[in-house]
């Protein structure tokens, strides 16, 4: 009977192990053509910030959406909102506003057309026909959008090219953070009797003058024996400008925005009746807006 060739098997296994160790540990393939989805978390944040800044400049939502898809977030809107909150805590209100604005526009859509940059100065130039074609973003692979402004350039003039009549009108997209000098108005105060909500829940929603919800707004609530502060935007799933507080029973509360606003007073949790006849304490919903 022939002996089993153990020496060959051992040599093969040793070679295989050595090859795998070299390929996986000592010298793994160097990756040079990676995609944004495999970037480290902080670099993905940086990417999102730049996408939001770019969107604030161009208003090109399809392009921003396509760029965000490259990051591979399961829910890009939630990722933007969460990053907006982190950005607020780091004190970058402008960056947070850009992120929140992009999240809001992705969520609700925007009818505003992309802004087309074709206003540029050329020396020794003279314009002839100017054509502007806005092509929707094709795919992540084709990232460079076909946003074609084609000033034809000839000789000796300084020229600002003029958009053709169907050129979309540039629009302001950024919302400056609220300032001390812009007091908020209490535009609605509703009693809420909803057995599905926690009892004595005070809900506050804060809008800016263009009805965009504002995160990071400090709200001051006071009652007979004390007071507390809370902030909008800590529950982005309920809205960037949303905040809530559980009131004390049989206690009168007053609420105002720290930056300056009307004061909502005499907020005592109201008695409500459930469909089954039981009574419970309801809450309020206050809506503030910058004029």
């Amino acid at each position, binding site marked *: 009977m022939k002996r089993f060739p153990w020496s060959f098997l051992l040599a*093969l296994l040793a070679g295989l192990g050595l090859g795998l160790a070299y*390929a996986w540990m000592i010298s793994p393939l160097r990756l040079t053509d990676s995609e944004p989805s495999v970037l480290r978390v902080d670099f993905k944040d940086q990417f999102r910030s730049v996408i939001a800044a770019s969107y604030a400049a161009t208003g090109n939502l399809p392009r921003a959406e396509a760029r965000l898809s490259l990051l591979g977030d399961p829910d890009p809107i939630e990722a933007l909102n969460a990053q907006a909150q982190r950005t607020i805590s780091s004190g970058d209100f402008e960056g947070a506003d850009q992120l929140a604005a992009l999240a809001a526009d992705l969520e609700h859509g925007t009818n505003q057309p992309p802004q087309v940059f074709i206003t540029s100065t050329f020396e020794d130039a003279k314009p002839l026909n100017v054509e502007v074609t806005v092509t929707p973003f094709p795919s992540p692979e084709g990232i460079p959008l076909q946003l074609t*402004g084609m000033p034809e350039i000839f000789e000796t003039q300084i020229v600002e090219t003029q958009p053709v009549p169907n050129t979309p009108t540039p629009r302001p997209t950024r919302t400056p953070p609220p300032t001390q000098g812009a007091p908020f108005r209490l535009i609605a105060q509703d009693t809420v009797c909803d057995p599905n909500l926690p009892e004595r829940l005070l809900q506050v929603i804060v809008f800016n003058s263009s009805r965009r919800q504002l995160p990071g707004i400090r709200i001051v609530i006071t009652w007979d024996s004390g007071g507390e502060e809370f902030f909008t935007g800590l529950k982005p799933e309920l809205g960037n400008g949303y905040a809530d507080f559980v009131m004390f029973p049989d206690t009168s509360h007053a609420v105002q925005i720290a930056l300056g606003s009307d004061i909502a007073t005499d907020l005592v949790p109201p008695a409500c009746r459930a469909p089954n006849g039981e009574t419970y304490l309801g809450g309020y919903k206050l809506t503030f807006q910058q004029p």
Partner: protein
Amino acid sequence: MKPIRWIFVIVTFLIGIGAGLAYGWIIDPVEFFDLTPDTLRADYKSDYVLMVAEAYRLEQDPGTAARRLAVFGAQSPSAIASDALDYARTNGFSDSDILLLQELVTAMQAWSGISP
């Protein structure tokens, strides 16, 4: 053991190494994550620089633009912007995108000249 047998053992060993390398590099290579932006494919890099250029057009803040470009590591901001401009020119970017990148390159060159 006969010498000829040793040769077969060594050949088998080398075949094992080859199979291991093929498996580790081709069939099931190491999966990468947590990478840095300098590993991005050229078109993604260029699009990132284009985003910076779009934002720069509105903000006109070369310091912020340079900070955003610094994610790519050792190269200077003007070199990063120049590389993206070269890529855009050779890969059919629209004229308006190329114009934005040109403006960014000019701004980064000027900024590099005045920054400490």
